[in-house]
């Protein structure tokens, strides 16, 4: 399960130059890791359904100071999610040398939808994206 998160975070960060990708989580070694960041793509993992095909509910929150920056980041994110519908699952137990697991993380690229959320101070778009893991 951990490798699904690590893989998707790296997929986003490695393919979105200029966009700060932030992993929202509870972490005793990083007290502010559960706070939403501005001018960043915040990624949060919610429910996990395990079965023949595992499903990991994922929320992408783009929060920016300006509409222009938010739109640019949203377009970049949308383009990489639309361009490919999967990425190979990698095991990041040793982060410097990720290992191919032999499965894919995939998503429905026709159902990528960023919704505008009202915010007094920032421009915010959110996308709920179920990630699925199956065999190659």
């Amino acid at each position, binding site marked *: 399960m951990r490798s699904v998160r690590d893989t998707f975070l790296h997929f986003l960060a490695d393919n979105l130059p200029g966009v700060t990708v932030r*992993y929202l989580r509870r*972490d*005793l070694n990083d*007290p502010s890791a559960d706070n939403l960041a501005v001018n960043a793509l915040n990624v949060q993992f919610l429910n996990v359904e395990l079965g023949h095909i595992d499903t990991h509910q994922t929320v992408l929150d783009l929060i920016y100071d300006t509409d222009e920056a938010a739109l640019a980041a949203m377009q970049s994110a949308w383009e990489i999610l639309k361009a490919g519908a999967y990425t190979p699952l990698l095991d990041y137990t040793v982060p*410097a040398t990720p290992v191919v697991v032999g499965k894919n993380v995939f998503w429905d690229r026709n159902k990528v939808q960023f919704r505008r959320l009202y915010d007094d101070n920032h421009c915010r778009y959110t996308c709920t994206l179920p990630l699925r893991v199956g065999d190659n």
Partner: protein
Amino acid sequence: MSKAASLISKVDRLLTKYNLTSREVYKRTITRTGGDALIGKPAVVTKTDVKLSPPPSVEYVSMRDGQVVVGSALAMLGDYVCLCSPTSLSKADLANPNVLLVLKLGSAEEECDIVGYNESVLEGQPVVYEVLARSRNKT
């Protein structure tokens, strides 16, 4: 000595004299180096504890307090309101997300996030901080 420095010195003396907490209070600074920050796997995590001197006053927020606001943060039941001297905590510490307050009693410790603070200022210098601390972990 300026009026502000004199007042800070008095605050320090009073906090030391009356020692308004039953637990020892530490400032914990967390640093992470190496590894992969993106996925939350640092190679090395260092936690440095420095005992606050003078000790701050520590008061539990309870039902009878009603609504308590510190800085822009609304206190919740179970939060702690601490009066801290600028001798022991700086403004940079209060704004640093990697600085926590830790309340220690024997081997038990409680980590608290700093969720808000007010400062009382004299001659442009903070003379006392009111800090709202929220428990995040008990061991």
